């Protein structure tokens, strides 16, 4: 039985505990205090008088701050407890917990307060394997208990690689190798408190923290996290919605996106991480998609992400990292296995979609922001990315973008967004040979070439190159519509094998094709009908893989589950081809799901029929919050409002499904300065200019 989990987040640091605030080893989920992909605390258990504590209530104040209100003992004698405990936890560069004991009795009272502490310095990548049943490698941890300074130091060392946790207490403590004990006396109606401060050190030059030597990090002060969050929320457009709960869902998604930003080690600005718990790192695909989803709302994420991805762009052929010149990175990690190249994930490039999507994002950002300087600044990486598509992405020379890992031990078998090993499979359950060309990759390549052509013509002064890209895009579209289309089934194949044989499965990937514009106009209707048909549409959203095919499984991440991020792109694609009602049905389903569940939007839900379960079924594999899930809700709002930059203005062309009433999005940033969008569904009085409040 999984227990409730409580988290705080700051950058790529996070702490996950149980509902009492304790961290007790659990092989199935990563619990503890983490930073830079390393666990710095794996045990953190508070007791009073030898008794564990029970939670009365909790206040999740912000994403980085939580308070637990607790009493000792079993549930039966809460009522007249004469002592209560408050744990006030916050995370910034360090982890802080203020423990307060209140004596409610009229007598002085003595207590023994104990905090068990420990760390195994596990690599988050190891824990992902432990969750799948593998044994965790033990590490020799040095412990130094110092009662005189009320300090416990935990340290792991391998060659020059050192990770260190230092726990110190403001109240004096008896420190032993496994924690701290406080023997205290509290006066009647009195209180006692201590501040526990936990620093996490990545050893660099001269024993100092690595980050202290880097200008970018030295200049960065985490002092004003509250102010920072308030500025983030205030800087985004305000939503005024008639539909109950929608404003809260919107603000919750914005706050989650605010939480899921971090500053990489070699960088000076914050970019989106993937999400809790496994992807608290830069994931190229998740970051690019999140930026594409949020340009109308929080455009500041995009230039920071584009510049970072350009900085990390592949420079060499490297089999271990699946790297090629011009390729955009898939994942950036800092754990021990990355450092010692036990795994290739310090910089892993095994993704075939990130590179064309990088160009798509650069062009899209310019359309919204008018930031021509950025387009000129990033000409070289964008050109390298476009060259990569043909030089390194076309593995068999047939003009399709394909993938096949060269790191056969740790490389990803499937290097598209559906990256589980069995995700690319035909309707009878047969996996195609490698290298594989999935259909949505061709859409991204087509879109990247068309957008690259615009950038070359308008900003890079290279009309010849623009002509070439446009010609290549047109040829790709023709070829694609010939080779991927299954005429008797009226949809596009999921993929082609290396010999050009189609993988015949019906999947959500065909929705991405609408988003990229590679679908021939006379085939769009058939694609839309499949997407909203009973085999793909669950009622909450479009399934990754259609029912009625042998591999279909409602709980399979990429073989039946429903992903909000996937659906956001599909809905945008449907509107692109003027299937407004269909886009509205998807948006309505995803918003219903998010509002029914409450809290952060999960990365995926099971693919069960909505009418069967009535309630969205969550899956253990689904993390939350996730940046591209929170971003999906924003993108869906933009899609319903029909926001599109045209020239110097923002075009608003709303198409709201019934039940949304009136909708106003105020202060949308862009090249126009700021502007507002108003919409109403058919039941509301025609898109009035009058504000709701």
């Amino acid at each position, binding site marked *: 039985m999984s227990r409730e989990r409580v988290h705080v987040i700051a950058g790529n640091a996070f702490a996950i505990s149980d509902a009492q605030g304790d961290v007790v080893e659990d092989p199935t989920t990563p619990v503890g205090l983490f930073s830079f992909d390393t666990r710095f605390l794996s045990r953190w258990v508070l007791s009073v008088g030898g008794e564990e504590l029970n939670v009365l209530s909790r206040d999740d104040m912000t994403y980085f701050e939580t308070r637990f209100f607790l009493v000792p003992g079993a549930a039966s004698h809460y009522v007249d407890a004469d002592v209560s405990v408050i744990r006030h936890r916050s995370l910034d560069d360090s982890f802080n917990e203020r423990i307060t004991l209140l004596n409610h009795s009229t007598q002085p009272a003595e207590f023994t307060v104990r905090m068990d502490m420990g760390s195994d310095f596990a690599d988050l990548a190891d824990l992902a394997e432990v969750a799948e049943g593998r044994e965790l490698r033990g590490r020799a941890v040095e412990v130094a208990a110092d009662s005189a300074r009320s300090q416990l130091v935990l340290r792991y060392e391998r*060659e020059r690689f050192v990770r260190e946790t230092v726990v110190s207490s403001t109240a004096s403590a008896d420190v032993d190798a496994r924690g701290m004990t406080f023997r205290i006396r509290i006066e009647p109606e009195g209180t006692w408190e201590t501040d526990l401060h936990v620093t996490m050190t990545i050893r660099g030059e001269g024993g100092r923290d690595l980050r202290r030597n880097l200008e970018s990090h030295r200049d960065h002060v985490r002092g004003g996290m509250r102010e920072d969050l308030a500025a983030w929320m205030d800087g985004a457009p305000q939503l005024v919605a008639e539909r109950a709960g929608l404003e809260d869902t919107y603000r919750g998604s914005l706050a989650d996106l605010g939480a899921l930003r971090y500053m990489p080690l070699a960088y000076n600005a914050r970019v989106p991480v993937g999400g809790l718990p496994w992807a608290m790192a830069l994931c190229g695909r998740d970051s690019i998609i999140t930026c594409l989803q949020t340009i109308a709302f929080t455009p500041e994420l995009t230039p920071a992400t584009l510049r970072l991805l*350009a900085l*990390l762009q592949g420079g060499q052929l490297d089999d271990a990292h699946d790297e090629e010149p011009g390729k955009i990175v898939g994942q950036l990690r800092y754990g021990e296995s990355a450092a010692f190249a036990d795994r290739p994930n310090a910089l892993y490039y095994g993704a075939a979609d990130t590179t064309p999507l990088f160009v798509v994002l650069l062009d899209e950002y310019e359309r919204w922001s008018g930031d021509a300087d950025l387009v000129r600044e990033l000409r*070289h990486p964008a050109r390298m990315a476009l060259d990569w598509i043909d030089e390194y992405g076309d593995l*068999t020379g047939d003009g399709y973008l394909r993938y096949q890992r060269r790191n056969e031990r740790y490389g990803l078998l499937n290097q598209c967004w559906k990256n589980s090993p069995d995700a690319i499979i035909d309707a009878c359950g047969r996996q195609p040979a490698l*290298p594989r060309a999935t259909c949505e990759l061709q859409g991204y390549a087509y879109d990247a070439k068309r957008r690259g052509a615009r950038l070359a013509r308008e900003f890079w002064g290279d009309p010849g190159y623009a002509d070439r890209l446009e010609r290549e895009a047109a040829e790709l579209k023709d070829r694609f519509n010939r080779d991927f289309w299954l005429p008797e089934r009226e949809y596009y194949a999921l993929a082609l094998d290396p010999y050009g044989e189609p993988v015949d499965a019906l999947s959500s990937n065909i929705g991405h094709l609408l988003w990229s514009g590679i679908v021939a106009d006379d085939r769009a209707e058939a694609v839309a009908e499949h997407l909203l048909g009973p085999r793909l549409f669950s009622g909450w959203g479009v399934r990754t893989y259609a029912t009625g095919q042998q591999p279909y499984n409602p709980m399979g991440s990429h073989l039946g589950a429903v992903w909000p991020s996937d659906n956001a792109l599909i809905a945008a694609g449907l509107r692109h081809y003027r299937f407004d009602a269909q886009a509205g049905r998807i948006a309505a389903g995803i918003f219903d799901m998010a509002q029914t569940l409450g809290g952060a939007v999960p990365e995926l839900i099971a693919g069960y029929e909505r009418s069967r379960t009535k309630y969205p079924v969550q899956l253990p594999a689904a993390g939350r919050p996730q940046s591209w899930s929170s971003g999906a809700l924003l993108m869906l709002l933009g899609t319903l409002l029909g926001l599109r930059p045209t020239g110097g203005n923002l075009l608003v062309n709303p198409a709201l499904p019934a039940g949304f009433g009136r909708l106003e999005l105020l202060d949308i940033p862009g090249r126009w300065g700021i502007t507002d969008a108003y919409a109403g569904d058919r039941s509301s009085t025609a898109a009035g200019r009058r504000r709701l409040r």
Partner: protein
Amino acid sequence: MGTTVAEYLGRLDSGRRTDLPETTAGTLRLDAREDGRTEHWYLTVADQHVRVTKSGDDADLVVRAAPAVLDRLASGETHVATALLRNELTAQGDIQLLMLLRRIFPGPAGARHPRELGRAAMAGREGRR
């Protein structure tokens, strides 16, 4: 034993490096430290060119490591990012220049072009026929 950093930088072509962004410019100093002695290489990157001298002047980014570590970078055996994470190499200053070393130094020997895999797949099918 592969190429040493001295050999590699000593014969680095001063011609145009089209794999470097034309907008990137800066100075990097590599300090090879051993037994209290330090040898410097000073790299000036501008306009898609890399100029190498042996100066110990201030630079935008200073990278320090044992000579053996720099040799492994120069022969493509070690990735600059993993060396940093292992604390075999330290960097001080404008860390954004660090990844330039990935372009300036070679990749690992024996790496395959992805098309080799594509050709192998096609050949494998021919063989089965």
